[in-house]
């Protein structure tokens, strides 16, 4: 085995050349080719599945969850939810940009709390109480056992665009009351926006909250 400095240097030089050549192939040509094809074949999806409302304004992405809150009042740390709209899952794991602070990027993420973590137990307890209080109306009482798990837990990304059909149904009476709509009409709206498992068995049944709220807004507007 020849271990002289010269041969090690030559070997490293070969390694570096290999790296640079393959970087051109895998790090330049490949992503550009894929981007080119994607932009032609699936422009909407490749650019983030943006969704417009009835007026044509972009109101977000079908894939990225958002919050539906009232404007922040003085003295509040977080804005209160706007209960006229369907509410998404909690997102206690979301962070905010801390490195390049000229941006205000939302930092995706989970809480990473264990099942026996006191903070998580507190969050779940509080969320459950809030869900019960917010969604109980004069004629409809929410029982603790009615509240599905997704309504009181944060998702992995913090950006979950969906809620379970159970959580959507739970909100129907509140939505109807706050928007002066028929319960049956809101029920239909939820049913129309419930996606079944893909091919019947892939993934889980879910309701896209943004799509549902856009439809709700149209329903409210149509009623005048």
């Amino acid at each position: 085995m020849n271990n002289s400095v010269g041969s090690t240097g030559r070997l490293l030089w070969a390694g570096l050349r290999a790296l640079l050549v393959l970087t051109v192939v895998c790090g330049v040509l490949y992503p550009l080719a894929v981007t080119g094809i994607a932009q032609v074949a699936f422009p909407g999806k490749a650019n983030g599945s943006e969704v417009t409302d009835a007026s044509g304004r972009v109101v977000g992405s079908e894939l990225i969850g958002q919050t539906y809150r009232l404007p922040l009042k003085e003295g509040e740390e977080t804005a209160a939810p706007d209960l006229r709209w369907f509410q998404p899952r909690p997102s206690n794991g979301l962070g905010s940009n801390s490195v390049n602070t000229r941006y205000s990027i939302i930092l995706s993420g989970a809480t990473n709390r264990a099942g026996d973590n006191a903070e998580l137990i507190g969050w779940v307890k509080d969320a459950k109480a809030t869900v019960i209080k917010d969604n109980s109306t004069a004629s409809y009482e929410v029982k603790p056992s009615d509240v599905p798990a997704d309504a009181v837990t944060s998702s992995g990304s913090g950006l979950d665009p969906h809620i379970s059909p159970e959580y959507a149904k739970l909100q129907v009476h509140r939505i109807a009351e706050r928007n002066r709509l028929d319960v049956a009409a809101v029920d239909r709206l939820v049913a129309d926006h419930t996606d079944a498992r893909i091919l019947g068995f892939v993934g889980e049944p879910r309701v896209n909250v943004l799509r549902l709220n856009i439809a709700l807004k149209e329903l409210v507007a149509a009623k005048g």
Partner: protein
Amino acid sequence: MSPVLAGVLQLLALLVALGLSYRPLGDHMARVYSSEKHLRVEKWIYKGIGADPSVEMRWPAYLRGVLAFSAAGLLFLYLLQRVQGSLPGSLGFVSIDPDQAFNTAASFVANTNWQSYYGEQAMGHVVQTGGLAVQNFLSAAVGIAVAVALVRGFARSRTGELGNFWADLVRGTIRILLPISVIGALVLVACGAIQNFAGIHEVGQFTGGAQQWNGGAVASQEVIKELGTNGGGYFNANSAHPFENPNGLSNLFEIYLILVIPFALTRTFGRMVGSLKQGYAILGTMATIWVGFTALMMWTEFAHHGPAFDLAGGAMEGKETRFGIAGSSIFAVATTLTSTGAVNSFHSSYTGFGGGITMLGMQLGEIAPGGVGSGLYGMLIMAIIAVFIAGLMVGRTPEYLGKKIGTREIKFAACYILVTPALVLGFTAVAMALDTPSHSMTNSGAHGFSEILYAYTSGANNNGSAFAGLNADTQWFNTTIGIAMLLGRFLPMVFVLALAGSLAEQKPVPETAGTLRTEKPLFTGLLVGTILIVTGLTYFPALALGPLAEGLAA
């Protein structure tokens, strides 16, 4: 349909899809690494490298190629991050600090993709697409090359020559990883994964105001991240982020990508050693452990024992609605039984036993089916250990695939299986004994210990997933996990290649009536047992303090 039934059907669909691609992909890979011909584009690349692809290498030369190439990759990726702030196309993101840049460079070159940074706020287009994603291809190709060299060691006799590293590297990249990635990336875009260079831009919101998003070449990086069992996410939330993994179908497809090459390599192995049945025995071992672990994971996650989960009525913390419990559990097992470490749900918020299953999966050495290449050579090492143990029981010199497992061979195999436990348990013990590392924990008690055990398990086994409550962006963790990743990747490769060289020099021993039939189900059973006992028991005391304590208390 109940969620459990839907989960079982998804698992079956995966089995069918993997089964359908097993033969064509396995045979294709065998042809790729046996062919005498070079494609025109490959000839250009060899010219650029200045290497002659037809020169046969003995194991020291092959190893020097692996190490030189990886060292160049490490240095390049380190420097790229260090100068990010001055590079165009970096979205104005600042340069990465030295300790984190070392950690990240080591991580991606070692096929680990442990991330102590937050993708969306730290790495611009140039580093993500031109640096990190490139290593996703190349570290994977290196892993397959080393596995193929070991297979040649079994297949060849009286030579010591193991092939040409540069040819194996380039062919793996050009003929296997790239074509599947192009198709796979487009499938992911069709599902909704993004693929653009829009940078950071604002998008309106329903209630007014705007969200800020990162654009990026996400789908093209996502596909190789899974296919090459790398696992480093474009975004902090990894494959839980809807732009990386938009729906149930993309989820199933990504799990398929994680598993397809490691499983098919057993066919390649069978082809190259001239006995497909030997490949099936290895495949059977991998599949048994994989299905078993998946079943256990689904059971514990659906049962959701734990105070917070009992209160919530389900273990949905850290899981996405569109994947649910089943889609998350299947992914979690696939990612930790391979060296992937991508996550579509956060393992720290799994049940105590669920977290334990992810850890044990990695601790078994990620061999069921394991990382691309590393899974196969890790499993073949275990097969050698198994025939050795069987040989001791009947008092015969052990042999495997017509090669004698003598003192020299068993020493290399023993060294191989000692590396990662020594790194994991050693570093964990030191971190627990020191004062400051425990300040990084988010959870306390058994789960806090698990965060650190998980970190070194993941690093040394080149997985890259985390109990992500641990704040790993400290000089201590960046440095020690960086070292664990490099040693956990390259020391085993040294032993594998040395073993391959030693095997290739032997002349084959004729099969006799006393030869252990390693192509039979009996051997598969012996191998499963050896894996669970030899490596599983090594970690049992540590697991008892962490996930087992948490799971039993729940």
